[in-house]
């Protein structure tokens, strides 16, 4: 089943009257259960593409359909609600809420979804257990290492049971051990639970794990390789 479909997706930035096409007419289709890495040099348009797929940034031209819904036609609040239900985000800088504990960070998404306290508690503990942080439930982000924070971010991304997870350079700030642990964990989720992952990355270790690698350069897909 097709989860993500972009059609002629284009993003043009205007800088001092000079137009730069960060993403240039990209047509892309991601199926359910894929483990896909978008690679390319800095400034190639990876993050912009991910931001448009995640509904965080507007496209200049073209459309993004997530599970059949054209997200470009949604209002601001509809888009926020859509992201909450359908998309899990993992950011390069972890981006946890600093005043909440690991467990509360994961619960927060479910709270926004309106789940009961009992459900939230149960699922947040399950997820943090799944990412190996059972003993860090009550730790705040500043009490966790980078790798642990990123694992909390993954647990948070999974909390809403999204259609897919968008991960923008998730390993960029991690050491090799943390990267390896995180990638193994995500690969296992992908294989066992069929969670769809779409990464943007420079990291060869992520590229090696990916089962589909899309290379973009100057805003265009120049290679789409399945393994």
């Amino acid at each position, binding site marked *: 089943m097709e989860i993500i479909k972009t059609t002629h997706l284009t993003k043009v930035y205007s800088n001092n009257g000079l137009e730069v096409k960060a993403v240039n007419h990209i047509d892309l289709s991601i199926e359910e259960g894929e483990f896909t890495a978008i690679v390319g040099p800095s400034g190639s348009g990876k993050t912009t593409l991910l931001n448009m797929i995640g509904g965080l*940034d507007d496209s200049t031209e073209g459309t993004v359909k997530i599970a059949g819904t054209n997200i470009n036609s949604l209002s601001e*609040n509809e888009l*926020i*609600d859509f992201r909450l239900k359908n998309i899990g985000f993992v*950011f390069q800088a972890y981006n946890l809420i600093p005043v*909440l504990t690991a467990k509360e960070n994961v619960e927060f998404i479910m709270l*926004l979804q309106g789940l009961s306290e009992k459900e939230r508690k149960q699922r947040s503990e399950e997820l943090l257990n799944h990412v190996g942080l059972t003993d860090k439930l009550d730790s705040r982000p500043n009490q966790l290492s980078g790798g642990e924070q990123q694992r909390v971010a993954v647990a948070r991304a999974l909390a809403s049971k999204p259609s897919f997870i968008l991960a923008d350079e998730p390993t960029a700030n991690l050491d090799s051990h943390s990267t390896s642990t995180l990638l193994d964990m995500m690969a296992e989720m992908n294989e066992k639970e069929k969670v769809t992952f779409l990464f943007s990355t420079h990291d060869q270790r992520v590229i090696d794990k990916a089962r589909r690698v899309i290379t973009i350069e100057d805003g265009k897909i120049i290679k789409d390789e399945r393994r």
Partner: protein
Amino acid sequence: MKMIFKMAWRNIWRNKRRSIITISSIFFAVFFAVFARSFQIGVYNKMIANMVGMYTGYLQIHQNGFWEEQSIDNSFIPDQSVLDLLHDNKDITDFNERLESFALTASDNLTKGAIIMGVNLEKEDGLMDLSPKLISGEFPAHTSSSLLISEGLASYYNMSVGDSLILLGQGYHGASANGIFPVSGILKFPMPNLNDRLVLMPILAAQELYAAPERLTSLVLQIDKPEKLNKLKKYISKKLDLEKYELLDWKGLLPELVQTIQADNAGGVIIIGVLYMIISFGILGTLLMMTAERMREFGILISIGMRKSKLILTLIMESLFMGILASIIGISVVSPVRYYFNRNPIRLEDQAAESIEAFGFEPVIPASLDMDIAMNHAGIVLLIVLICTIYPIVTILRLKPVKAMRT
């Protein structure tokens, strides 16, 4: 909601030093505003109590038109229904009948105009607190035709107790009002205009002098709960035949006092306004910094699915928490101070006291314990906080998550 509360509360303490400075500045604003206003309102209440207690009472009933034209021809005999209305109302502790007019006083070859008040001296003592003002002699009996004269008048005539004073005036409907009356006592009033020309006499003697038996110029109502004045006035207005009678409260009876208070109050309000303006900039500064520091976080929260309205609610809560906390501390600290100065008012001495006494006021500065003062200022602080929150609200409404996350 619980989580939003928790987030808002914890966010306040992310930058403890800044929050403590902000809370302290709000605390000092509340403290000084309530402290200053308590003294200001306390002084006004004292002035009102002095003036009202000295002369007018809180409410007066006259024949309609008397206050415009204060002539004995506008005197009245109160209907029994009016007396019943006043007797039956629990908020009215008593009412004094007065017959007031003017007369030319004379002794030897001197004359002077005077205010003549025919009163029930026993009741009037309760309202005007006459006993401490009696510097010589005694109160005349209810049926006597002796006078109490003010100290200024006594010294003008070089008169003492036992001497006689001639009164020459015009009675009801043009009757002549002349008589010679013994002086049974001398009263010293702090207000110069009363001390120089007031003559008190039993009401029966005054009615006889002015050929106005049973007639009154005013019914002065005594109440022990001034805060119920407006309600009482409204109630009596409904029951009273306003074609026949007029009902005036102390504001109508003492417009000069109202204007004095309004003018002084405006000065106080301006000072407190300046204080709040300074505090507002402090609060706004905190919110500006807090917003700038947390743009990235706002972007993340919106990205992961938090609606802007909820984010705004969190920020409003944060601001209100600081305002409420500071107000509670401010009110808690200022309350015992107000209580102390209410029980132990500042007493002016020497020249300062004399100048205040010259206007007929007691030379004390008490603090008011009116809780409305504290509540009003807490309300003003919270309003300022809410107004200052407009900036982060607008910022969030305009926020684009991608841009915000890049900051």
